[in-house]
């Protein structure tokens, strides 16, 4: 019988961005991305939920020390993106449109490299209360 348990940590970052494809003309960008294409940017309170699945350690009872997970997310994700302009201030989105979909995949790759592969990792990223994404999708 599986003794696997999911543990979650929620963190927040506030950032500016715009959705824009430099390969397209302005009319196409406006048509596809609408007000999200504003050249002066807009912004969001992003909420990131990190889910780890694993077996509780017999010695601690923890799947993963959530304080350590918080430190890891802050150091690698929040410090990188909080109070930043995703398009202008981050190397990750210099040539990648900072949609919620692309942001969650970028965050996943960063965290996956830092977390032991014995844990399953899943992320949910809220861009607004009503728009959110998950990765991996299943």
């Amino acid at each position, binding site marked *: 019988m599986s003794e696997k348990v999911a543990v979650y940590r929620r963190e927040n970052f506030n*950032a*500016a961005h715009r959705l824009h494809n430099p390969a397209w003309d302005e009319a196409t960008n406006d048509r596809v991305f609408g*007000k999200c294409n504003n050249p*002066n940017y*807009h912004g969001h309170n992003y909420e990131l939920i990190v889910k780890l699945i694993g077996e509780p350690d017999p010695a601690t009872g923890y799947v993963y020390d959530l304080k350590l997970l918080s430190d890891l997310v802050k150091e690698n994700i929040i410090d990188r993106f*909080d109070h930043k*302009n995703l398009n202008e201030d981050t190397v990750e989105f210099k040539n990648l449109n900072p949609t919620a979909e692309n942001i969650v995949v970028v965050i996943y790759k960063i965290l996956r490299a830092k977390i032991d592969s014995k844990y399953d990792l899943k992320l949910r990223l809220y861009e607004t209360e009503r728009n959110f994404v998950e990765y991996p999708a299943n």
Partner: protein
Amino acid sequence: MVYITRTEHFNAAHKLYNPKWTREKNEEVFGRCANENWHGHNFELHVTIKGDPDPDTGFVYDVKKLSVIINEYVIEKLDHKNLNLDVDFMAGKMCSIENLVIAIWNQLVPHLPEGVKLHCLKLRETPKIYTEYYGD
């Protein structure tokens, strides 16, 4: 007297930066909020009006109509905008939520129908930070 509130949302970029100060002083006072290339928030605006319910409708005022007014004169000017650069009624002002809530009040009041009394604006910038303004 009954108070009724309509909630609306807008997503915007801004920075806290006083152009009269050096970059060092701005960073000292405003920290990461002074980031040159902006940052942003999902703002939530609560508009509370007050009055006695109309005997025929039971309404203090039709909140759907209130929503249309808020959207036309406030949300459309703020949503998916840069508060420092794109918003006429914030021009020349520091883009703190304190100043923004006052500016929204001044923007809204002239467009409310006679008899509709604005009681309070509550403006939330993050889950942990909000302002309230009662017009005085």
